[in-house]
């Protein structure tokens, strides 16, 4: 489980990243985090990876707690997470296969058979096995994001964090990415998606929260539309 308990983060300069955020995400959840740019969506995801630690309150990821975690334990948390961002972050000096396999090798897996099997399985999941020998620049934006998704999945994470996964994609490619995220979620992986674009949200199925000035509001199903203001949103209480 991922849990925020009254987590507050203020950046140097006074900007609020998180304002007493309380939230619990189970492994099978599909959580959509909406909000304008600078509302705190990315900060929320960075708090899950322990890239930032809250000034007050705590963040819990499985057995790790932000108030007690030591720096050398943070990689162990991240191995339980898959991360994709809007800029794909693929290495241009190697093939798509090598980009995905890199995540295995860098975490100490060196058995060639295991690397091949797991990498191909991840590429199959995102429908990119046929492009495994291509370089990232030879792929479309949507394909590059799928390659990044394969890399995030190759270590079989418990949760997938996607920070504006469709931010640099056209609508069709963006929809494909959201469809893939839902498919991954059906397999039992918790998915946390930060997006300022409501296009990919399915308000009937998704759990939706909205960030505003670092504060988190959860949408109550059956009330107003998720993109709309106040009525359907309630402030999560610690």
């Amino acid at each position: 489980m991922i849990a925020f308990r009254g987590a507050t983060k203020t950046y140097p300069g006074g900007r609020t990243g998180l304002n007493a955020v309380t939230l619990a995400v189970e492994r099978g959840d599909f959580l959509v985090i909406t909000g304008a740019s600078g509302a705190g969506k990315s900060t929320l995801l960075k708090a899950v990876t322990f890239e930032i630690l809250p000034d007050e309150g705590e963040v819990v990821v499985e057995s790790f707690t932000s108030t007690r975690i030591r720096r050398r334990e943070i990689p162990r948390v991240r191995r339980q997470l898959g991360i994709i961002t809007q800029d794909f972050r693929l290495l241009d000096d190697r093939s798509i296969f090598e980009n995905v396999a890199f995540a295995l090798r860098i975490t100490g897996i060196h058995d060639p058979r295991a690397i091949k099997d797991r990498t191909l399985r991840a590429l199959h999941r995102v429908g990119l096995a046929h492009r495994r020998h291509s370089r990232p620049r030879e792929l479309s934006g949507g394909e590059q994001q799928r390659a990044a998704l394969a890399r995030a999945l190759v270590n079989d994470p418990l949760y997938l964090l996607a920070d504006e996964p469709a931010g640099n994609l056209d609508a069709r490619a963006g929809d494909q990415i959201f469809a893939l995220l839902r498919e991954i979620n059906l397999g039992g992986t918790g998915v946390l998606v930060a997006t300022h674009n409501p296009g990919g949200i399915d308000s009937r199925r998704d759990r939706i929260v909205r960030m505003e000035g670092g504060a988190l509001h959860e949408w109550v199903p059956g009330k107003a539309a998720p993109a709309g203001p106040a009525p359907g949103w309630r402030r999560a209480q610690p």
Partner: protein
Amino acid sequence: MSWRSLVYLVREGLQTAARNPALSVAALISTAASLLVLAIVLLITSNLEQQAESLENRRVLDVYLADQVSEPDRLKLELALRELPGVARVTYSSKAAALAAFSVDTGRYDLVEALGYNPLPASFRIELTPGMATGQRMRAIADEAVRHPGVEDVRYGGEWIERLDQALRSLRLADLVVAILVGLAVAFAVSSTIRLTVLARREMVEIMRDVGATDGAIATPFLAEGIAQSLVAALITLGALKVVTLVLSYRLGVEIHFLAPAEVIGFVGFAVGLGFIGALWSVGSVLRRTA
């Protein structure tokens, strides 16, 4: 970290450098240029030291004897001189040997015929142990030797030796200061170059961090690259320095000594150390910022 991981990470660093030749070559040239400055200072120092050593080798005292000194007294004197602190060797030269040497040096073989006697005195040449050949020590030995009966005069460089000592001390001090300043400048330049390399690959650092690589795993490829880069740069520098030494020796008609093997090893070790520290510093600061 297992050895397989270590081998993989080192290879990853070297392969990444090879896959990005433009950045690697630019870093290599920049590092080699910085190291060349240090190598030139080292070469000048080395040659000055050798010159100083050859000057020190010429530091001897000549103890001239009176003609009437008997054989037993001469032997006693020789023993006394050998006992003096700092004396490495005492060589006797008889009146006849002195005349022969004079004749060879000057080409005049008619001195005895012209004067009717051999005017040159017998003497002892005193050579000093290395490190003891200071002007002060030589004056002390001369003062001691001249007190012995049968000693007519003691000659050594006198004041010029002490002036030379002073000059060599100043030279070595200046050289040390220059070497430290240049060393620091080179350390900064090499570190900055490697830092640029790390910053250029910031994306790779972020990917490694996101997939759960440890700080050690993230740093290792960059450390390997930094060490390899500074090692190759040091070898290129030494090659260039060798060529410069040969050309200058030929053009100027003077013998310029290349660095001694120990100096070469020290230089390469220093460069590799700089590469390691530079990479550690650079990747450390990137890691701290991308915690």
